């Protein structure tokens, strides 16, 4: 058994190597990122809000439009790339992270985005998702979670609550659901966040942090499907309920919520996890201060477990984890650069030398 100490590439922004607009270039607007294709989601679909938010947000990056690529899988949300006037590929079911991995590794000068859904990312493509996250390839994954299969017309998904009655589960689903944030943290993702389709401000701020992150950023977006799972996220959207339903995660701040900010998260000494307590009873000084930069994902995972697995009444929202570790693609390119710096001669000369290695003999 042999291991070598890898050189860690310099930490930098997720988009540091992507060409930016020059001074003479026109300022971009959302319109510049809008393609000529008619958007064909159902009226009222949460995807519209996310599309608008992304189109509105992309100009903030100041990148050359031709260096932005959106790759998607299959499902309603995966039509996303067609509506953005960037480079894009609408690929096959579940495989977008693998395609994006090849693209991001081959090209350091691109800002690579993956658009996927709960079925695409967590069911058929679950394997690619966890491996992209553990490798930490420089890309941002937008996981639209509507907790249902929309494009195939209403079967339960891997995030649907147990007992859910759908077309394929007339007497209730017996599948235990995934919590996408827990899955991502379990795979040691370096950036994990959750946001909501209808909260454009929060969504945009999370997108900005995700784009700046070097490595795989997973952003779960709660997204309403008005046709097959309407109201799944009403608790986190309703004016009367959201204060109690949303546990807001802000790095460096105590995690408190409720209309009067009367609730907070504290350590649970019994389970080793975290639990909700009344601030008045435990004292603000004992409330957990959110540390998204903690290299150990344990606390972030514990917080993720406060998401309801059944019908959603309560969910932590925000950036769970944001840590720096070397990315696969930077390291792969560094290994190649090191090898290339060590040789001289034209590729043709070196190929000739390669073909002539080993025991050779000459016939005159």
């Amino acid at each position, binding site marked *: 058994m042999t291991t070598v100490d890898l050189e860690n590439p310099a930490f930098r922004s997720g988009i540091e190597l992507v060409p930016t607009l020059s001074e003479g270039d026109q300022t971009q607007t959302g319109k510049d990122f809008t393609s000529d294709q008619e958007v064909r989601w159902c009226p009222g679909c949460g995807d519209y809000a996310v599309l608008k938010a992304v189109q509105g947000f992309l100009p903030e990056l100041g990148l050359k439009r031709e260096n932005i690529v959106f790759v998607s899988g299959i499902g309603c949300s995966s039509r996303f790339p067609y509506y953005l006037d960037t480079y894009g590929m609408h690929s096959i079911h579940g495989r977008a992270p693998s395609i994006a991995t090849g693209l991001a590794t081959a090209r350091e000068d691109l800002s690579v985005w993956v658009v996927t859904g709960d079925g695409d990312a967590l069911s058929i493509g679950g*394997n690619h998702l966890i491996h992209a996250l553990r490798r930490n390839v420089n890309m941002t994954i937008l996981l639209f979670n509507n907790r249902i299969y929309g494009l195939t017309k209403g079967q339960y998904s891997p995030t649907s609550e147990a007992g859910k009655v759908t077309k394929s589960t007339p007497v209730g689903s017996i599948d235990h659901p995934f919590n996408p944030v827990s899955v991502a943290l379990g795979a040691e993702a370096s950036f994990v966040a959750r946001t909501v389709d209808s909260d454009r401000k929060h969504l945009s701020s999370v997108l900005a942090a995700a784009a700046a992150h070097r490595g795989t950023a997973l952003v779960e977006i709660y997204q309403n499907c008005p046709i097959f799972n309407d109201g799944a996220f009403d608790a986190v959207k309703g004016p009367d309920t959201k204060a109690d339903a949303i546990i807001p995660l802000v790095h460096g701040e105590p995690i408190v919520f409720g209309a009067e900010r009367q609730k907070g998260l504290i350590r649970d000494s019994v389970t080793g996890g975290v639990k909700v307590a009344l601030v008045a009873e435990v004292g603000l000084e004992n409330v957990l201060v959110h540390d998204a930069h903690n290299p150990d994902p344990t606390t972030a995972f514990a917080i993720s477990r406060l998401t309801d697995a059944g019908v959603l009444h309560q969910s932590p929202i925000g950036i769970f984890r944001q840590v720096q570790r070397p990315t696969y693609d930077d390291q792969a390119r560094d290994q190649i650069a090191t090898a290339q710096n060590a040789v001289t001669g034209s590729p043709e000369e070196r190929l000739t030398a390669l073909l002539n290695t080993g025991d050779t*003999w000459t016939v005159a």
Partner: protein
Amino acid sequence: MAKQVKQLDRVVIRFAGDSGDGMQLTGDRFTQESAVFGNDLMTLPNFPAEIRAPQGTIPGVSSFQVHFADHDILTAGDAPDVLVAMNPAALKANLGDLPKGATIIVDTADFTTRNLAKAGYETNPLEALGDANDQLGSFQVFPVDLTGMTVAAVKDYGLSRKDASRAKNMFALGLLSWMYGRPTDSTIGFLEKRFAKVPDIRDANVTAFKTGWNFGETTEAFAVQYEVKPAPASAGTYRNISGNLALAYGLVAAGVRSGLPVFLGSYPITPASDILHELSKHKSFGVTTFQAEDEIAGVGSAIGASYGGALGVTTTSGPGIALKGEAIGLAVMTELPLLVVNVQRGGPSTGLPTKTEQADLLQAMFGRNGEAPVPIVAPQTPGDCFNAAVEAARIAVTYRTPVMLLSDGYLANGSEPWQIPHVDDLPKIDPAFASIADLAEGESFQPYARDEATLARPWAIPGTAGLEHRIGGLEKGDGHGNISYDPANHEKMTRLRAAKIERIADSLPPLEVDDPSGNAKVLVIGWGSTYGPIGAGVRSVRKAGFNVAQVHLRHLNPFPKDLGDILKSYDKVLVPEMNLGQLSMLLRAKYLVDAVGFNVVRGLPIKSAELAEAIGALVSEAEGVTVDLSNTTDLTGEEL
């Protein structure tokens, strides 16, 4: 003692032992020595799928066959002239393949009651030598205590008996190297390098090798030394090369000649993994190797890299192709260059991982949903894997299409002398990336516009200003490339994709028909690794005075344009394949020709002597003559 030296024109030796006995290494070294000596040669490694199958058992036997000659040869030989058996199981497992009169050199050390029982021997066959019930009576048997002599020879190095006895393969190699007058420098150099960090092991191996040689020279047991002179070869520099190595070099060469960085996305699988291993060493050529989480991610990442302007490659064997099918379809629809290498093995399912077969031709041709044509290229010898890889890359890049490269286990692990090509003679491959400069003033970019000659679409890679566009698996509108569900458009695009692949035939040279007399009525046509056995079979029939023609296909899709006329100009067409008739089916379907199959699926190359009989039978039928092939082939299948 001066020994008699006997001239031979060709010899087939099989080294056989336990999986852990180092038989592959022994065979490989003997091959290198023979290659450096200048013989023509072909090799056939044969080993179990288990890394260390139970010791001393028949399933654990690993063997390496090498055929070397003073003339041009085509196969690794149907049967060995010499068997080196390191234990009872190796003797028993290989005995059935030996012709009468063959030589057996056997290590007596392992012929214990226990090991005899493991191999299924009730009595020790070596004890009955010369008796009335001698099972080995029809062979020339040399029982030698290889292990004992090895242990004695290396006792000064302080190794345990177990470690010392591990050098017995080098003792055997030394003995055989003496017997056939092989040069020894390359093996000694190899051992010194390989075991540089463990001097006692290094010295033990070198000593065992030299002692084996000296034993041959001094013992009275071996009275004859053989000489197989170098084979005449055309001028040039040569090396010995295996198919997987040649294929990997071909991919590096394709990168150099196209100026594209090679990106390999691959998941380990027998017998293709060596290509991944080899390419991972060539980062200085800008080659990226990505060991993916599964077969699908392997091809997915390659497609992503191709989309980004790299030469995307994925390597696998049949089961992996089954998993990659949907993604290959995506590359058909998005019309991106992609190389898919299938090193075929015995199937179906897990099948025979370490054995060879050609049963994935129809999978390559049709193994996707929808009308999804994919060009198919097949190498015919280990060294030819290099050219086939460059050719597959040329097609992929020029026509913006996935290309299937069908190698197989025999080519992958087999080896032969290879005339090293001059890099300048290799074809240049032009990626011809699209740019805004290609567009007229005010013209908008059409990602599915067509090149008139090739019908290829433009390859516009991200980062190209003004050519932003979206592609995907949904049906594309002709020209503009947006999603289209229009019936007429789908009909048009389906036919365009098919026509594009057919256009490749415009770039193919005419087939080489090997019909020396011009009077043959029977044509033998094959593809892939059957080239050698077919060639040897055809030679035998000609040697007996009969006419037969041979054609071998490199391109299986599209077929070369002149194939139909060639097939129709012969009365009988024989198609030998290591499957149940897949090329036959394609030829029958496309050309309405009454192709006759010769089909063998034993996990091993076709035996040329058996094939010669089949060719003879067909010649007899076609010409109304009696074909007698006796005396034209010897027992090893090559013509005398």
